[in-house]
């Protein structure tokens, strides 16, 4: 039953009219037959070539001591110096731990919730309530980070914040949320979930629209409950989307953003909140450490890329969906 759902365009693989000849002949014919598809994708490939591959030589900044006026080619080569500097830092392991820790926490909590939300909203009948829910949940995405963090600090203030006022009303003691290292990651992740869950659920809602309602009809006739139908029809129906997004999210684990962490960080929660991006920022205050930040960025990219390839490979084995 589920097979035809995922067959898609992959099912189309018309056989060549020519009898099986040499491999090269087959390939040449296939290319010739699909020339229109190549024409379609050509502008995009040109775009990537010009705007991404042409400037790619700039990557070597990470291995040089960049001096603006000598250009990227003329600047002196220093090999792994910047990387060593980064690895030698007193805080290297802590930075790594915090960066990856925050990302994994975000993944564990923030990845399933939009899916759940989409499944729930999808069950609503078309109408005002459904539109209201969708609109309200996606609104926080538009708040700027500065305002979001500002609100978080106000709400969690030990003296005037409503959260602590509520805790005290129930007889508890005020919790110093923003200065306890143990709370940092949770505050960061859950405020992020609050802000993004509606927005992130949109893609799943779109994917859910393509699920054949007949499947539901048939299952209902068979006596399946709502929950069972969701589990056996909806979820598998959007599985390719889920898998692709999961792969992409794993491929950005090292890229914990700078702005939000920086605004939430203070000297008391540093041991939990110091991540790679904030470290690079601090390091660059004295003097333009262009090459250093390029080197750290490259390190992050390499790790991300390796993670992506690994997860992609796993996905290809377990599932049919993968990036390539």
């Amino acid at each position: 039953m589920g097979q035809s759902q995922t067959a898609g365009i992959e099912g189309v693989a018309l056989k060549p009219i020519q009898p099986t000849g040499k491999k090269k002949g087959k390939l040449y014919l296939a290319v010739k037959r699909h020339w229109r598809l190549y024409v379609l994708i050509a502008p995009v490939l040109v775009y990537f070539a010009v705007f991404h591959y042409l400037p790619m030589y700039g990557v070597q900044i990470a291995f040089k001591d960049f001096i603006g006026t000598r250009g990227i080619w003329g600047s002196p080569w220093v090999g792994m110096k910047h990387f060593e500097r980064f690895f030698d830092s007193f805080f290297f392991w802590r930075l790594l731990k915090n960066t990856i820790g925050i990302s994994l926490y975000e993944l564990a909590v923030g990845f399933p919730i939009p899916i759940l939300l989409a499944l729930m909203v999808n069950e609503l009948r078309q109408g005002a309530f459904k539109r209201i829910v969708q609109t309200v949940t996606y609104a926080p995405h538009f708040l700027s980070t500065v305002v979001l963090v500002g609100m978080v600090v106000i709400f969690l203030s030990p003296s005037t914040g409503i959260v602590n006022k509520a805790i005290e009303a129930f007889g508890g003691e005020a919790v110093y949320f923003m200065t306890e290292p143990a709370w940092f990651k949770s505050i960061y992740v859950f405020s992020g979930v609050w802000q993004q869950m509606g927005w992130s659920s949109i893609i799943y809602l779109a994917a859910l629209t393509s699920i054949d309602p007949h499947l539901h009809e048939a299952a209902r006739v068979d006596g399946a409950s709502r929950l069972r139908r969701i589990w056996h029809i909806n979820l598998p129906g959007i599985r390719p989307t889920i898998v692709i997004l999961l792969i992409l999210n794993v491929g950005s684990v090292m890229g914990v953003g700078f702005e939000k962490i920086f605004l939430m960080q203070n000297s008391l929660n540093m041991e939990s909140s110091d991540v790679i991006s904030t470290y690079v920022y601090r390091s660059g205050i004295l003097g333009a450490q262009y090459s250093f930040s390029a080197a750290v960025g490259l390190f992050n990219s390499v790790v991300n890329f390796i993670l992506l390839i690994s997860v992609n490979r796993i996905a290809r084995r377990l599932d049919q969906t993968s990036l390539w």
Partner: protein
Amino acid sequence: MTLKKKWLGAGVSLLLAASLIAGCTQSENTGGKGNSGDSGDSGAAQTENFNPTGMPIVNEPIQLTFFTGLAGTNGSTPFEERLVYKEMQKMSNINVKFEFVPFDALTEKRNLALANGDYPDAFFTARIPAADLMKYGAEGVFVQLDGGLLENYAPNLTALMEKYPALKKALTMPDGHIYSMPSFYDPEFLPMLIGTPLWIKQDWLDQLGMKEPQTIDEYYNFLKAVKETDLNGNGQLDEIPYSGSGIGPFIDQIKGAWGVGTRGLGHKYVDVDPETNELRFFRTTDRYKEVLQFINKLYTEGLMDKDIFTQDSKTLYAKGGQNLLASTINPNPITQFNGEGYVGLGALKGPHGDQLYTHIKVPMVWPGAFAITNKNPHPEATVRWMDYFFSEEGATLFFMGKEGESYTVQPDGTLEFMDHIKNNPNGLTLDQALTDYVSWMGGSYPGYVNVKWFKGSESLPSAIEAGEKAEPHQIEELWYNFNYTPEETEFMSTVGSDIHTYITEMEAKFVNGSASFSEWDKYVETVHRMGVEDYMRVYQTAFDRYNGK
């Protein structure tokens, strides 16, 4: 499978190779390696047009273009249309085109300009860090100003450097040359250098029947009394003895009572031990430990606002506006939150008898406020143009504009903006109204700030009073900033930065009690293990250079 992999590999390599080749042929900048300010051929023609003294600076008009940093508060009116530069153009005969770059984009655009070779004749208000001055000065991109240009064509700045030798030291790069002109505050006006005194509410002192604290103990007693008395008369004990934005400012203010920080605010980790006359890493000394212990006592006894680690200045000012603050640190309570009745404290005497006012800023605020590039065909004229603003007439023009047009001279000699600027008929704020006349809003400009022509909150009577109290106890020598070689900068940005981070973190923990003082020795050991020895070596070298050894 292997065929596919081969294609993949081939494809990627081909594209990368293409990128490398393309990159090679990209038009890249060739930074000239000249070091003097002379521009060769045009020299002769220039000397004829150029006047070494007096106005106009050139007989036939010349055109210069400046890369100009623009602050958000500085409006968007082009500089060429503002009174100050229109006047300057009339006087000097030099047409300056100011290319605006918002402060937001400053670092990126500066790097881009240098990398593309697209930079104009000078960088103006562009916040060039000392490390860049050194780096690009050595490449010849920034013109060497010592060795001729300053001596011959910048009499005003040279006079300032002679009067205040530390200024010269702070402007000189490790290679011995000067590549820039600074943003410089008058070193003799103490309230300006104090900037943010420790304010205390006089009304409440009176209500409690206490006199102004002269010692740390007296200050402590005041704080304790505040906590227990309803001083603002609202029936609640909501008064906050001390609040601020982070504990840093408070530490900086009171550490003098334990005799540390003897060389001013420009050096927050190293000073000179008055007994041995040697450099001292004072953040790990026992005296400094006592500072932290005192603050920890304040925190645990509830005398310090619990929000201090997280609140920003706006939240602090909101509390001030509600009449909750007994003491705080900021430029001036009146201008920041309408706080009446505050006085600034002088130096407090500590338990060992030290009474040192160490909260004194470095008067040279931006070394790289102005730099001339090697693309400038008229370096001498440019130097003369910029130097004019370091003279009294020039500075007055820069900050106040023109007498009768933007300001008037009061009977007591002070200068005041005219009514149409101060109380703009169209409802513009002061900053907005000024954008037709001057361009100093937002700071970072090259120039000389003196109370004669610039009135910040530091010139209010309460600030002046605070300055007078601080004067007898101010530190004997104020170090300006040291300049580091590229290797030293790298050290300071890595090991140095790590040490600073660790210290800041641990101090916060000692203060709020999450780290106990029984761990102090272990903490000191860790800090030293991180590289304090090398740190001090770098410092010593830079210090020796600073003193011209």
